[in-house]
């Protein structure tokens, strides 16, 4: 069944699954490691191109920091503000997954769901 769907359809389905599991998410986005948006469900007014580039920058820099500190393979990066956070997950060698959440979200659940999603994204790409 899924084999007949395009990558885009499968990515969108994966993102919907994540959004359904965690309705409080403010936005999700999948980009290439060099910062091009592939699939996204961001709130209106957010420039997906810019977020995709920033996600790639964050993961690129995170990888270098992690290498320097000997942390093994990078799983995710986070940026936190007083009212919101963004978690950026490494999705295989080609992709990154950015998840925008309000503060106070269930982080344990978020990590479980988002890492599953990142794994699915990695498989699709």
């Amino acid at each position: 069944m899924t084999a007949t769907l395009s990558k885009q359809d499968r990515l969108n389905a994966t993102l919907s699954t994540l959004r359904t599991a965690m309705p409080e998410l403010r936005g999700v986005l999948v980009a290439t490691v060099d910062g091009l948006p592939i699939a996204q469900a961001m709130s209106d007014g957010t420039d997906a191109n810019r977020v995709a580039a920033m996600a790639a920058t964050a993961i690129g820099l995170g990888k270098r920091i992690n290498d320097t500190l000997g942390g093994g393979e990078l799983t995710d990066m986070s940026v936190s503000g007083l009212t919101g956070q963004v978690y950026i997950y490494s999705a295989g060698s080609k992709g990154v997954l950015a998840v925008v959440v309000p503060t106070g979200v269930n982080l344990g659940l978020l990590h479980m769901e988002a890492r599953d999603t990142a794994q699915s994204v990695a498989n699709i790409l």
Partner: protein
Amino acid sequence: MTSVHSPLKVVVAGPVGAGKTTFVQTISETLVVSTDVEASEDIGKLNTTVAFDFGTLRLDGQELHLYGTPGQDRFSFMWEVLCEGALGLVLLVAGDRPQDFLHARNILDFITSRNPIPFLVGVTRQDQGRVWQPSDVALYFDLSERQVVGLNATDPAEGRGLLANLLELTLTPLFAPELGDTNPRSF
């Protein structure tokens, strides 16, 4: 004036494929922190920088910190971030890719309109056959010929020479009247 002992921050900008990463890797005396990833679009090479390349070197007793920027416009926020507090700019443009000159001009305007720092233009790939001469590029950019230098990004001596020129511009108030205003470290 900045003390000779505090490091000078120099930004290396320019379009994709101009040789920014190569330039930083060629002249850095320390291991370069680079953020190259595989490019997913056809940009004429395999890898591209997504955050920055960081290298350091010592020139005439002056410590320099070099920050190479990403080339694609979508990373323009990094140009702003990296140019904060920078005291000099090297704009690299591939001499055999005149189709990139307009983009290079736009990058130069983007950076210098926000942070009017002294800059030099480096025309790379001077070892290639059909390549623009620095004087022609100076005409195109409407700059004095002193501000446009030809080089191979793989040649450490040429890279150091260019930075020595830039250092002269940076440390000469005549060419950088705004330096006194933008440099809070001058006492």
